[in-house]
C-alpha cells in the first residue's frame, strides 16, 4: 500500500472509529443545544439590554439636564437676589451718595459664590451703559453685552440667561437680573460665568452609566457647548470644532437626548453600544467558554468513554492479532462488565470449547501423526494431480527416499508398481481413485521394484481424500510391504504343516506299512517260480494297487507340505475335502470321526489347494483340541448366494454374490462368548503354553481373505462350534487331461537318466525301455556329465534328479547347459521343490515330473519335453 492510500485508510479508520463517532456525538449533544440556546438568548438579551440601555440613557440625559437646569435656576436666583441687595438698589436709586468701593466689594462677594467660574459681576444702566464691575482688569466688558437679552430683562422684569458667546479666546454665559424699584427696572446686574462651567457641570455626569458614557450639551443652533468626554481645553476651539454633534456621535454609540427646561438647550447622552452589550458579549464569551469547557469535558468524557469502550475492544483486537500471529487461541483478559466484557467472556467460553477441541484435534493429529509415523504400513498422500504431498516414515522407508525429495513428484515415478508375476507395470490406481472417487485395492500380486532391482511385495488400497464439502482433494494410499510377511506366512504354514506331518507320521507309517505289506508279500510270491501267470498278474496288480495308494498318500503329503505359494487354480472343494479326509483323520486321531457329505454338483472356486487344505487342517486340529475324548468333525458343503444385507452384517468383508459355503463343525465344548471375537486375532490362544501358537485361526482368516472369502464362527458352550467358510464360486471348470494310453516315441530316442537312487534308476529304466526309449544311466551328476560329454550326439533328453549328493540337480543342469545350451532336460524329483523347479524351467529346463511317476505320466512328460 502506498503512503497516500495508507493515509486514506488511516483517515477512514479514524473517521469510522468509535472514538471519533463518540466525540462527534458528544459534541453535537452538548454544543448544539448550547449554541442554539446561546444564540437565541443572546439575541433576546441583547435586545433587552439595548432597550434598557436606551431607557438608562434617557434617564441619564434627563438627570444631566436637571443638573444643568438646577445650575441655571440657581444662577437666576442668585442674580435676582444680588439685584435685590440694598446696596445695589441704593446705588441705582441714589447714585450720587453711593460708596463705589463698597459697591465693588459687594460685587466681589457676589463673585465668591463661585469664585472659579464667576468671572465678573457688573452693573448696567437700563440703557445698557456699564456703571461698575467687580473686575479690576481692563477687559472690554461691553463686548459681552447682548442688547436683546438686556431688553428682554427690562421688559419681563425677570432674570435672563444668555447663550454662550465668545469673547476673544474666552466663552461666557451671563445672567442678567433687573434691579427694581417700586417694580420698575432701574438698573441691570450681570453675573458673567465662564462657559467652562458648562463643561465642569457636564463632566460630572461623564461615566454616569459606565466609564465610557458621556453627555454633550447643544444649544438651540445645534452647536455643541459642552462635551463630557473631553477634558477642559480651549473652549473657543471646542465650540468651533464640535459644532456638529453628529461628528461626535459615532455609529457605534447609542444616544438619548433630554431638553433643558430653563434654556433651549439639549443634553445628549452617549453610551457605547459595545460597552452596553459588553455583559451580553461577556455572557456570550462565558457561554463560549462554557461551551468550550463543555466541549472539552465532552471530548474528554467521550475520549474517556471511548477509551473505556474501545480499550476492551482494542484488547480483543490485540489478543486476536497475537493469537493470529502465534496461531493459537488466547483468552481475552477483559474485566469490563459491559457488552464487550460479555462478548469477551462469550469468546473465552467459545475459545475454551475450541481450545479443548483444538487440543483434542491436536492430540488426535499428533496421535495420527505418531500413529502414521509409528505404523509399519506406508501412507502416502497425493494431490489431485497425483503428485506426492505426504509420506510417513514407513513410506519413506519403503521407497527409500525422504519426503523432502519425493514431495511434488508423481507417485507413479516414486512408486512404480509391477505385477509380481508378469513383471508388467500396474496401472496407476491413484488416477482411478481420483476419477472414480471409490476406494480401490491394489492387485494382489503388486510389487515394487527398487532401484537396486530388489522386489518388494505391496498390498492394500488407495482411497480418495475429500474435503468437508465432499470434493476430492487428493488420494491416500495405504501400502504394506508384505514381502517379509509373505515369507513368514509361508514359513509359518510350512511349520504348521511339518507340525501336522509330525503328528501324522504315526498314522502315515501305519498306512505305509499296510501298503508295503502287500507289496513286499506279493514281491516275494512273484519271486517264486511256481507261481502261475494268473497269480503273477494278481500279485503285480496288488503291488501296483498298493504303490498307487502309497503314491497318492505321498502326493497328499507333498501337496500339504509345499512351501511356495501356489497359484490360484480352479478347484472343486468337494475333491479337496475328500482328498484331505485321510490325512485329517491321521491328524486328529481315530477317536474322532470325520463326516463328509459330497454334493452331486461341483463346488468350484478359484483357490490354492494347499492353503485350503491347511484351513481344514487347522480347523480339524482346533476341533480335536475341543473334543479331547471323542466327537465328530463334520464337513458340509453347499452353494449359497450372499445378499447385501448378509454382507453388511459381516462388515462388508465380502461382496454380495454366489459363494460356496463349507461348514466345519465339531461337537466339542464350544468357545466362550467373550473369546469369540478374538479367536481370529494373531497369537490369541486359550491353550496351555507351548501347545498353541495362536496363529492357526489367524492363518485361516488370512487365507480366506486372500481367497476373497470370509470365515465366521458360531459356537454354543457345551454343544460345539461351527466355522462357516465362504469361497467365491467360480463358473470356470477344471482343466483335466484325459488319462489316455501313451504313444510310442518315434524312432528310439536315447535318454540319459541321472539319479542317485538305484531303484529309481532301475524302475525308470524299465519303464523307459517299456515305452521304447534307449536308456543311459548315471548314478551322479558328475557321471551324468561325463556320459553326456561322450554321448552328447546320441542323447535326446536328459532326465535329471534334482536332489542328489555331491553335485545336485541344479549344478548338474548348469554344467550340462554349459556343454550344450540346447540340451533337453526333464527335471524329476520326489520333492515338491517348486522354487528350484521354476528356476530351472526359467533357465531352459524342458519340464518337471513329480516322483513317483507311472508309465502314462512319464510318457506324457517325455513327449512334452521332446516336443518343446
Amino acid at each position, binding site marked *: 500500500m502506498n503512503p497516500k492510500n495508507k493515509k486514506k485508510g488511516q483517515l477512514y479508520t479514524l473517521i469510522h472509529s468509535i472514538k471519533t463517532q463518540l466525540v462527534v456525538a458528544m459534541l453535537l449533544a452538548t454544543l448544539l443545544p448550547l449554541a442554539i440556546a446561546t444564540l437565541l438568548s443572546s439575541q433576546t438579551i441583547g435586545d433587552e439590554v439595548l432597550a434598557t440601555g436606551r431607557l438608562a440613557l434617557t434617564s441619564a440625559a434627563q438627570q444631566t439636564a436637571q443638573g444643568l437646569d438646577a445650575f441655571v435656576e440657581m444662577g437666576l436666583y442668585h442674580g435676582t437676589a444680588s439685584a435685590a441687595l440694598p446696596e445695589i438698589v441704593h446705588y441705582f436709586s441714589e447714585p450720587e451718595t453711593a460708596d463705589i468701593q463698597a459697591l465693588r466689594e459687594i460685587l466681589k462677594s457676589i463673585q465668591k459664590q463661585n469664585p472659579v467660574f464667576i468671572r465678573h459681576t457688573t452693573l448696567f444702566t437700563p440703557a445698557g451703559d456699564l456703571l461698575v464691575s467687580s473686575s479690576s482688569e481692563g477687559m472690554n466688558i461691553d463686548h459681552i453685552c447682548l442688547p436683546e437679552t438686556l431688553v428682554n430683562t427690562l421688559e419681563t422684569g425677570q432674570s435672563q440667561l444668555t447663550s454662550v458667546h465668545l469673547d476673544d479666546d474666552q466663552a461666557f454665559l451671563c445672567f442678567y437680573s433687573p434691579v427694581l424699584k417700586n417694580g420698575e427696572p432701574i438698573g441691570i446686574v450681570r453675573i458673567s460665568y*465662564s462657559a467652562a462651567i458648562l463643561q465642569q457641570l457636564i463632566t460630572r455626569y461623564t461615566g454616569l452609566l459606565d466609564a465610557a458614557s458621556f453627555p454633550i450639551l447643544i444649544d438651540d443652533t445645534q452647536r455643541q457647548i459642552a462635551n463630557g*468626554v473631553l477634558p477642559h481645553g480651549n473652549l473657543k476651539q471646542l465650540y468651533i470644532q464640535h459644532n456638529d454633534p453628529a461628528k461626535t456621535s459615532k455609529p457605534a454609540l447609542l444616544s438619548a437626548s433630554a431638553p433643558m427646561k430653563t434654556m433651549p438647550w439639549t443634553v445628549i447622552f452617549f453610551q457605547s453600544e459595545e460597552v452596553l452589550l459588553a455583559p451580553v458579549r461577556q455572557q456570550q464569551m462565558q457561554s463560549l467558554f462554557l461551551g468550550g469547557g463543555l466541549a472539552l469535558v465532552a471530548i474528554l468524557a467521550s475520549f474517556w468513554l471511548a477509551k473505556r469502550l474501545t480499550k476492551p475492544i482494542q484488547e480483543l483486537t490485540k489478543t486476536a492479532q497475537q493469537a493470529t500471529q502465534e496461531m493459537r487461541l488466547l483468552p481475552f483478559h477483559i474485566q469490563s462488565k459491559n457488552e464487550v466484557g460479555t462478548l469477551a467472556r462469550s469468546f473465552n467460553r467459545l475459545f475454551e470449547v475450541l481450545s479443548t477441541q483444538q487440543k483434542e484435534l491436536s492430540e488426535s493429529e499428533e496421535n495420527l501423526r505418531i500413529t502414521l509415523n509409528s505404523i509399519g504400513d506406508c501412507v502416502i498422500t497425493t494431490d489431485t494431480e497425483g503428485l506426492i504431498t505426504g509420506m510417513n516414515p514407513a513410506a519413506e522407508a519403503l521407497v527409500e527416499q525422504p519426503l523432502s525429495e519425493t514431495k511434488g513428484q508423481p507417485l507413479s515415478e516414486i512408486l512404480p508398481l509391477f505385477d509380481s508375476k508378469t513383471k508388467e507395470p500396474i496401472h496407476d490406481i491413484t488416477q482411478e481413485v481420483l476419477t472414480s472417487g471409490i476406494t480401490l485395492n491394489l492387485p494382489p500380486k503388486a510389487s515394487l521394484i527398487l532401484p537396486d532391482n530388489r522386489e518388494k511385495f505391496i498390498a492394500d488400497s488407495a482411497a480418495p481424500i475429500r474435503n468437508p464439502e465432499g470434493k476430492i482433494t487428493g488420494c491416500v494410499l495405504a501400502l504394506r510391504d508384505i514381502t517379509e510377511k509373505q515369507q513368514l506366512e509361508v514359513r509359518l504354514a510350512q511349520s504348521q504343516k511339518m507340525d501336522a506331518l509330525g503328528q501324522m507320521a504315526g498314522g502315515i507309517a501305519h498306512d505305509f506299512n499296510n501298503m508295503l505289506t502287500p507289496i513286499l508279500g506279493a514281491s516275494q510270491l512273484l519271486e517264486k517260480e511256481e507261481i502261475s501267470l494268473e497269480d503273477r498278474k494278481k500279485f503285480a496288480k496288488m503291488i501296483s494297487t498298493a504303490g498307487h495308494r502309497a503314491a497318492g498318500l505321498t502326493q497328499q503329503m507333498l501337496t500339504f507340505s509345499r512351501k511356495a505359494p501356489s497359484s490360484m487354480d480352479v478347484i472343486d472343494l468337494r475333491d479337496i475335502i475328500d482328498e484331505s479326509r485321510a490325512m485329517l483323520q491321521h491328524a486328529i486321531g481315530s477317536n474322532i470321526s470325520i463326516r463328509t457329505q459330497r454334493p452331486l454338483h461341483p463346488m468350484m472356486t478359484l483357490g490354492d489347494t494347499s492353503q485350503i487344505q491347511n484351513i481344514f487342517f487347522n480347523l480339524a486340529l482346533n476341533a480335536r483340541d475341543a473334543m479331547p475324548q471323542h466327537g465328530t468333525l463334520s464337513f458340509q458343503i453347499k452353494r449359497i448366494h450372499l445378499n447385501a444385507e448378509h454382507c453388511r452384517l459381516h462388515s462388508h468383508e465380502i461382496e454380495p454374490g454366489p459363494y460356496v459355503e463349507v461348514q466345519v463343525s465339531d461337537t466339542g465344548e464350544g468357545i466362550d462368548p467373550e473369546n469369540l471375537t478374538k479367536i481370529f486375532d494373531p497369537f490369541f490362544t486359550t491353550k496351555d503354553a507351548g501347545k498353541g501358537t495362536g496363529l492357526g485361526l489367524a492363518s485361516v482368516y488370512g487365507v480366506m481373505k486372500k481367497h476373497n472369502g470370509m470365515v465366521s464362527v458360531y459356537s454354543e458352550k457345551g454343544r460345539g462350534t461351527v466355522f462357516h467358510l465362504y469361497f467365491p464360486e467360480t463358473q470356470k471348470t477344471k482343466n483335466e487331461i484325459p488319462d489316455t494310453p501313451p504313444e510310442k516315441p518315434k524312432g528310439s530316442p536315447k535318454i540319459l537318466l541321472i539319479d542317485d537312487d538305484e531303484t529309481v534308476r532301475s524302475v525308470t529304466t524299465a519303464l523307459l525301455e517299456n515305452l521304447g526309449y534307449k536308456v543311459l544311466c548315471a548314478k551322479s551328476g558328475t557321471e551324468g556329465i561325463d556320459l553326456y560329454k561322450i554321448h552328447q550326439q546320441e542323447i535326446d533328453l536328459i532326465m535329471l534328479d534334482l536332489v542328489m549328493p555331491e553335485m545336485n540337480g541344479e549344478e548338474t543342469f548348469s554344467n550340462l547347459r554349459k556343454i550344450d545350451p540346447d540340451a533337453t532336460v526333464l527335471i524329476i524329483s520326489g520333492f515338491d521343490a517348486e522354487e528350484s523347479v521354476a528356476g530351472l524351467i526359467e533357465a531352459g529346463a524342458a519340464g518337471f515330473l513329480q516322483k513317483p511317476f507311472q508309465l502314462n505320466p512319464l510318457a506324457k512328460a517325455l513327449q512334452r519335453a521332446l516336443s518343446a
Partner: protein
Amino acid sequence: MKETQRRETLAKGLNDHRAGRISRRTLLKLLAAGGLAGAGATLWRNRSLSSRAPFLAPIDEPGPNSAMIPGTDAHAFLRGISKGFSGKKIRIVTEDTPPSQATRQLIQKEFTPLTGIEVDWELLPLDQVLAKVLSDTTRHAGAFDLFYLDQAWIGEFCEACESPTDWLKKPDLAYPGYRFDDILEPLIQNISTYENKLCSIPYDIPIIITMYRRDIFDQLGLRPPTTLDEWLSTCQTVTKKMAPQVFGSTAQWRAGHYALHCNMTTWLWAHGGSVFGRNGNPTINDDRAHEAMEYMLKLSETMPPGVTNWDWHEESRSFARGQAAIYASWGEFFPAYDDPKTSDVVGLAETARAPIEKALRPPSECSFGETPGICHQGGSSLAISRLSQNKDAAWVFLQWATSADVTVRASIMGGGASLIRKSTYHDPRIKSRERVGPGTTRHLPVTLDAILNRMGTEPHFPGWEKLATQSFSVELGRMITRQQSVEKTLTHMARAAEQAVSS
C-alpha cells in the same frame, strides 16, 4: 476687632453654620474677617474617613506590654494612678476618625476601668472641632481638657495649650515605656511645634503617597515610575491604551477646592519650587512653578474628564472603581482598596516610593516653615488645654492614648490608620497585617518612608489658609478648567501671596 470678640464671632459662625443658620459663604466671610482663614480651609480638610463608614476591626489585640495585661508596668501604673485620680473626669474633642473611635472604645475597656478616670470624648466633624476649640479658647471656658489640633492650627492655638515639654519631665506621671523619642521626629517638628515650641503630641498623620494598580502595570509591562517624567509617560501610556475604561491617573482637582492646592504643592515641590522663597518672597511664579503647572496640565490629559469636580474622596472612589492606574494621594485611603465593600480592585493596589523630585528646594530657602517634599502631609495632634482643671489626669490620658500599644491597637481597629511612632511600624501586630484584606497595613512601610524622607509641609502663617483656599485653589481651578493660562494663574497666585504676606 479684639481677640476675644474675634474668636467668639468665629465660634458662633461655626456653630451657626453647623446648625444651618448661615451658609458656608457667610461662614467664610466671618472666618476671613476674623483672620482665621486657615481655619476655614480645614473645613474641607476632613479628608480622613469621617465621610464614609469607618472600618473597625472587631478584635482588639493588646501587645505584651499592654496595660490590658495584669502584671505589666503599664497596668500597674494605671492601677496606681487610680489612687489619686479615680473619679476624675476629663473631656476631649477630636475629629471623628476611625482611630479616634477605636481609642474611645479602648478607654471603656481599659483606661477607665484601671484608672477610674472618666473620659468624655466628643467625636465631631473637623469644623465642629474647630468651633469647639475656638469657643473654648475664646471664652476661656476650660470645658475641654484636651484639644485636637490640625497641623494648620498649631500656630493659632499653641499659646492656648500646655507644652508637653514640661509634663514629660514629671516622673511620677511618666507612663511606663512611653518613650517620647520614639515618636517620629518629622511629625514633632511639622505638626506639634510652632516657632520652636512643642505645643502638642502628634496624633495622626495623613500623608500623600504613591498608589498604583499592579495588574495594569503588569498587563502593560510598566514599572512604578521613579522620576516625574516616567510618571507622566506612564500615565500617558495607560491612557492611550486603556481609556476611557482606565485612565493613567486621577486627582483631587476640584476646581476652587483646597484639595487641588494640596495636589499642586506636591508637583510644585517635586519640581523644586515652593510657595515662598527667602524672606517671605513669593516664588510661586518662578520657572520651577511654571514647569510644575505645565506638568499638571499634561497630567490632566491622562485623567478622567470629571476630575476637576473631584476632591480626595471622589478621587479615591475613582481609583477604587478602577478608573486610574496610578495616583498620589492620602495613604489613609489605601486600606479601603483591599476592602471588597468599598473597592473593585481588592488585592490589585500597591504602594510605591514617590518618584524622585526633579529638584528640591531646601527649607532654608523657603519661609514660614514651608518644607518642600513630594509627600504632602496633613497631620494633627492632641494638646492639653491651659484651662484644664485636670491637667495631670489629661496628661496621663494623653500618654496612654499616644502610647505605642494603644496607637497600634487603634490603628488596627481603625483599619490601618497611619502611625506616629517608629517602633509601631515594626510591631508584629502591624506587620502581620501586611496582607490583602480589610484593615491592611501594606501601605505603612511606604508611609513611614514618606514621613521620614519625603514629607512636605505647607507654610504656617496666619494668612496662609486664606491664601491657599480662597486664592490659590480658585486660580488653580481656573487654570485646570482652561479659563486662564499658567502664566496668568501664577501671576495671580504670586500677587495674592504677596498680599497675604504683607497684610
